[in-house]
């Protein structure tokens, strides 16, 4: 992981924030191997409340980068998000888009959790999930898996914890892959 120094992992995905998905969305991404389409369909409270008119879907393009912080000696998640017309999301919009189950923690200290920062390699504005607590939660994950003699991939475990806070959901196949790699 220390070789990370001058590079980063990156992933782009599209998130639809409304039940009504425009039919041409899938075709846009067919040709682009780098982009994976996630259709995040939100459960509506009550179908009878949805009236006949289809709401326009808001499609947001998320780009995630994983970098390594020398200062904290942990990985850090950088991301940026914009609408399809290119308009970037504001910090407020990002805070509001954090999943309901994490909102309480976010509200305790939004300025210590997600803020806008300069990407250390690209020099452009990105949002960052602050790394200062990473060691805390990762050590309990690592201790537990050691006790149970389970193989863990640090990055996969870390990303599965922090990713969902900002809309990055890891497929379970990553976990399978991680344990398969360990057996080789």
């Amino acid at each position, binding site marked *: 992981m220390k070789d990370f*120094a001058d590079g980063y992992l990156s992933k782009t995905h599209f998130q639809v924030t409304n039940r009504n998905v425009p039919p041409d969305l899938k075709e846009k991404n067919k040709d682009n191997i780098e982009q994976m389409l996630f259709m995040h369909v939100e459960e509506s409270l009550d179908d009878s409340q949805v009236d006949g008119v289809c709401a326009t879907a808001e499609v947001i393009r998320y780009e995630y980068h994983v970098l390594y912080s*020398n*200062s*904290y000696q942990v990985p850090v998640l950088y991301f940026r998000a914009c609408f399809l017309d290119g308009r*970037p999301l*504001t*910090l407020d919009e990002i805070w509001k888009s954090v999943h309901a189950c994490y909102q309480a923690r976010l509200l305790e200290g939004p*300025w*210590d959790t997600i*803020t*806008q*920062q*300069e*990407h*250390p*390699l*690209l*020099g*452009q*504005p990105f949002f960052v999930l*602050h790394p*200062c607590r990473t060691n805390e939660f990762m050590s309990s994950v690592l201790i537990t898996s050691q006790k149970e003699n389970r193989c863990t991939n640090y990055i996969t475990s870390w990303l599965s914890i922090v990713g969902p806070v900002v809309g990055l959901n890891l497929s379970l196949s990553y976990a399978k892959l991680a344990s398969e790699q360990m057996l080789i």
Partner: protein
Amino acid sequence: MTDDKDVLRDVWFGRIPTCFTLYQDEITEREAEPYYLLLPRISYLTLVTDKVKKHFQKVMRQEEVSEIWFEYEGTPLKWHYPIGLLFDLHASNTALPWSITVHFKNFPEKDLLHCHSKDVIEAHFMACIKEADALKHKSQVINEMQKKDHKQLWMGLQNDKFEQFWAINRKLMEYPPEDSGFRYIPFRIYQAATERPFIQKLFRPIASGGQLHTLGDLLKDVCPSAITPEDGEMKTQVMIHGIEPMLETPIQWLSEHMSYPDNFLHISIIPQPTD
């Protein structure tokens, strides 16, 4: 001989005479006069330019005013970099006053962070201090402090109160008696016109044999081109707070005495001036 504490004061009270001019395409109801201000080297543009904003807003219509941003010779100025760093990096060998252009429209989303309130500046400043302490003390000193101590660091900077700031900051400059310095030195090296905004690496102030590493040692390790002459001449200057410290200076001393309030040494590598 100058006392070391005098260096702390000289760094804190450094000022840059600046002339702010409104961008010519901004729509005004009458002509906008330039505004002159002495900017503190150790502070941030958006923290000290309320008067500049008010001055230009007086000649503009409400609807023409959006988030303020600053530019020097076509380059948007990153408010989250300390003012002294911006000046040294972009304009140190030009005539004073420093001429900055003020904009209220077309915020450059791809280049600049937003700064909608003082809270944003405080969050950024405190994040830098925390990162510096992670390097110096594995975050032990900053984490042991109470919230009111953190607040005092910010208020000291915001209100230009040297004593108030250093009453707390001195704790961040201490190290255990059995060590000869910090664990790692918080520093960033900047060069204009590179894609990469800065170089930051782990660097110990003390060598394994116990000798103090110098500024020259640091540069040789992380940015050798800065101190390599070309055709027998030095093509670049190494600048901190507007001066070129001797390369023999111990980096531990520089970290304790010439860091910015965020506890980082911000070092500029700039072309030698051509006379």
